[in-house]
């Protein structure tokens, strides 16, 4: 699938909050093109500016610089009424679901149709029932939000968000309050809605797994700026930014330096099998290992031979790994220079 036509363009967008402790820059020179029909992910650590970014897309937050172009129109230049109208073409779901607690499920789904005034009461009810069917909750129409599980609440929120046939669905950490299984189901539902109705979906998350599961493209945001943008497959196979490597490969790999690290010779004398020893050492000490040289043979399930490894430069890390080796009584000695 190729997406070509832009539905949302962010041009040099910035957002600065004025606070008691001076200005806080939440977004800085954001340039993004989001294509019609795609599932676009935005990932970043907590506080990176993700929520502010989506809230600028539907003008819940007014950018302090740059432009938000939705279907060719500059949202900031619109009248408040025009902006409200535009928002009706952009559904939104939230981490905390944000359902109306005093309305039952059916009336929650009717809510945006009441706001938009697009349907008569009877029509709204009928459409709401269809939507509840779509999200698999037609039998809970009369229930109140307090009687639903997190996953069910998010389904209601999704039904509500697409009730007025929006062109875009904004999802701010929509699965972050859900368990892994429910997360999978909600993500599948979002994918289905994207495919069946052609709704452009923008997914905000701090979890790589969410991006991996459903997104076509992803932008990585770090400290208020876009670090990189691209197809998910490309970014996953070769993250170019530091934050990208950190998010994708995890903390350990990124921060560790081996250049000046000490080298150790580990000797396997046949009492232990090599692989569990190394795997257990890494798990127990949380220290990555660089294997420089190995000459071992597996004899009847146990290892015989030697191996030269490097631990990270950080002394404490190295000590933890060595302590583990001591505790399982694997002999080791430090080697220096090129004495390999």
């Amino acid at each position: 699938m190729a997406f070509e036509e832009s539905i949302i363009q962010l041009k040099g967008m910035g957002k600065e909050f004025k606070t008691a402790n001076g200005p806080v820059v939440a977004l800085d020179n954001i340039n993004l093109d989001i294509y019609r029909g795609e599932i676009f992910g935005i990932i970043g650590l907590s506080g990176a500016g993700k929520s502010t970014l989506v809230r600028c897309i539907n003008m819940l937050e007014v950018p302090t610089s740059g432009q938000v172009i939705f279907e060719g129109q500059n949202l900031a230049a619109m009248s408040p009424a025009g902006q409200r109208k535009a928002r009706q073409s952009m559904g939104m779901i939230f981490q905390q679901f944000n359902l109306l607690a005093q309305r039952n499920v059916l009336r929650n789904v009717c809510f945006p149709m009441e706001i938009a005034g697009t349907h008569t009461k009877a029509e709204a009810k009928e459409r709401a029932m269809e939507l509840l069917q779509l999200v698999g909750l037609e039998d809970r129409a009369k229930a109140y939000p307090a009687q639903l599980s997190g996953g069910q609440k998010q389904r209601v929120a999704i039904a509500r968000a697409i009730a007025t046939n929006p062109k875009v669905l904004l999802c701010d950490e929509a699965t972050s309050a859900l368990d892994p299984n429910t997360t999978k189901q909600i993500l599948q539902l979002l994918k289905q809605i994207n495919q069946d109705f052609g709704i452009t979906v923008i997914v905000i998350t701090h979890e790589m797994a969410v991006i991996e599961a459903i997104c076509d493209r992803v932008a990585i945001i770090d400290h208020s700026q876009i670090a990189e943008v691209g197809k998910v497959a490309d970014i996953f196979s070769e993250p170019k930014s530091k934050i990208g490597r950190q998010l994708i490969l995890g903390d350990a790999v990124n921060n560790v330096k081996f250049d000046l690290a000490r080298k150790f010779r580990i000797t396997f004398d046949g009492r232990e099998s090599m692989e569990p020893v190394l795997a257990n050492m890494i798990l127990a000490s949380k220290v990555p290992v660089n294997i420089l040289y190995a000459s071992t043979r597996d004899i009847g399930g146990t290892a015989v031979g030697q191996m030269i490894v490097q631990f990270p430069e950080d002394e404490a890390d190295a000590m933890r790994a060595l302590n583990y080796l001591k505790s399982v009584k694997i002999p080791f000695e430090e080697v220096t220079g090129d004495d390999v």
Partner: protein
Amino acid sequence: MFSPQIMELIQNGIGETLYMVFISTAVSYLIGIPLGIILVVTDKDGIRPVPVLPQVLGILINLLRSIPFLILLIMMMPVTRKIVGTSLGWKAVVPPLVAAAAPYIARMVESSFKEIDAGVIEAAKSMGASTWQIVWKVLLPESRPSLLVGAAISTTTILGYSAMAGAVGGGGLGGIAINYGYYRYETDMMFLTVAILVIIVQIVQEVGMRLSRSSDKRIR
């Protein structure tokens, strides 16, 4: 124990008290709810911030609330006479009761609205809801249970004020308690009227709490 005349007097007193409390509460809510809405909506973190207005309103409300009720009652007498034509009897208590209760109710309503999760209001905004739609379809219905609790508390407070008004010729049960219990040393009468006031407060409070609980859909 009590003569039929006394019983009739008490009956009338109950009637007057209920009447003035009901009318004062109703009028106070007619003023207090819009004030509460304005306070919340125009707040700097509100749906539609307006500079200065909420602060000025807040100061006025605090000012009215800081005047002791008896003083307010006396201070307002000329105004009261203009509005209801007399400065005696239960009718004359209604204007000062409203002046004391409306700002109190505005604060109650304000705090009920502030209990609503900001996320829910944000969701309504994201659907393109106007300020009025948010007030009608989110603030008021979502705070219904809290508003009902507030109404019970406000009504009982107004009842307390109304009894105080008896001291300056305000009629009702408070008037009976003062006239018979205080001026004529008929302590029986005083205890009886106080007991009736206590019962009315209990009933109003209990009914309010029950209505609130039974209307609250957050309870499974």
